């Protein structure tokens, strides 16, 4: 009797370990998560418009049909990135995700405070290696630190009415995400 009770207790403890291990392992082994879905259809370091979801086809589940969206799948191993998003419609937001779909930063047009959202994306190491005087002149530059080398930037513009969707789509399609070295310095 005691033997069975002990065996059940052991089983429960093992079950707890299995449960925690599977929960932690799942994001790493998932093949249908957002990053894996987007990887084959988005070239790296380039803005790719994503078609709005319809009842027949959607790139991801639970997409908001009122938004035009574009994805920049980035890879910072060659150096920092520069992102420019024009603000044209009612509401524009830029969200940053790691390669395991964790949202680590987001900004919207009002917080950016201009007609263009401009920011630099780099890893913590790249930020630390930035020359100091450049950091000072760049005081008004918005710098986002990515916790991972690769990830996703989701650029989304709201169409308050369906008729404004083409305008929102052209705004997100006009967004640029380029390696900082490829961007011509204005000075």
């Amino acid at each position, binding site marked *: 009797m005691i*033997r069975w009770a002990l*065996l059940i207790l*052991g*089983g*429960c403890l*093992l*079950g*707890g*370990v*299995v*449960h*925690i*291990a*599977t*929960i*932690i392992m*799942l*994001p790493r082994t*998932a093949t*249908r*998560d*957002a990053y*894996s*879905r987007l990887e084959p259809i988005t070239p790296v370091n380039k803005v790719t418009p994503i078609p709005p*979801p*319809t*009842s*027949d086809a*959607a790139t*991801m*589940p*639970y*997409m*908001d*049909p*009122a938004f035009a969206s574009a994805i920049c799948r980035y890879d910072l191993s060659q150096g920092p990135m520069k992102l420019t998003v024009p603000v044209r419609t*009612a*509401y524009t*937001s830029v*969200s*940053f*995700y790691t390669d*395991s*779909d*964790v*949202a*680590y*930063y*987001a*900004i*919207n047009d*009002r*917080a950016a405070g201009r007609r263009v959202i401009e920011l630099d994306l780099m890893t913590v190491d790249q930020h630390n290696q930035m020359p100091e005087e450049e950091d000072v002149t760049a005081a008004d530059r918005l710098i986002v630190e990515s*916790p991972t080398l690769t990830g*996703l930037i989701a650029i*989304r513009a*709201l*169409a*308050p*009415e369906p008729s404004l969707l083409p305008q929102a789509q052209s705004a997100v399609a006009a967004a640029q995400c380029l390696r900082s070295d490829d961007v011509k310095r204005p000075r």
Partner: protein
Amino acid sequence: MRLLLGTLFVLAVGAVIGLGGTYLALKRGAAFGSLTIGAWTAWPKTGTADADPYARASIARIGLLPTAVGDGITFAAEADDNGKPLDGRCDVLVSGITPSARFWTITLYNREGELAANSVGRHGFTSQEIVRGADGSFAIIAAPRAQPGNWLPTGGIERYTLVLRLYDTAVGVSTRAGREVPMPSITTRSCP
């Protein structure tokens, strides 16, 4: 022999409890820090870098990109205020006001997160499209057949989920359910 039997028993119990627990946790959305107001539930922490392992696992399993907190917050309802699952064959009234936000959208999905097919191609409303009453409140009727006012077609599907997204809002990780966060009520009015 006894040792072998015992070991197999422990392994079986462990597998059933462990995998069963994982399945249930992901199916029911067991992330920490949920915010429930009326029929609506949100997981504000899912949209931050502090997302817990349960949140990360369910994001990966569903395959969506969560709404980041700097962008907005996503509330979902699978049942009405009385706990009755939302049924696309019934007339369901969604009425009231939302917490303050620059924009909001309400969208109807099937339980797989796909837009429900319907003849008029409407899947939701934005805060600008909606027709409001004199006091600023709104009423949306989710129903299989055309209705006057803000009609949200259900396409007659058996089960659906309503998703209310608030964009550029103060509602977030530190929000507690209370009077400052009024959410629309959901009532099932008539079923065939």
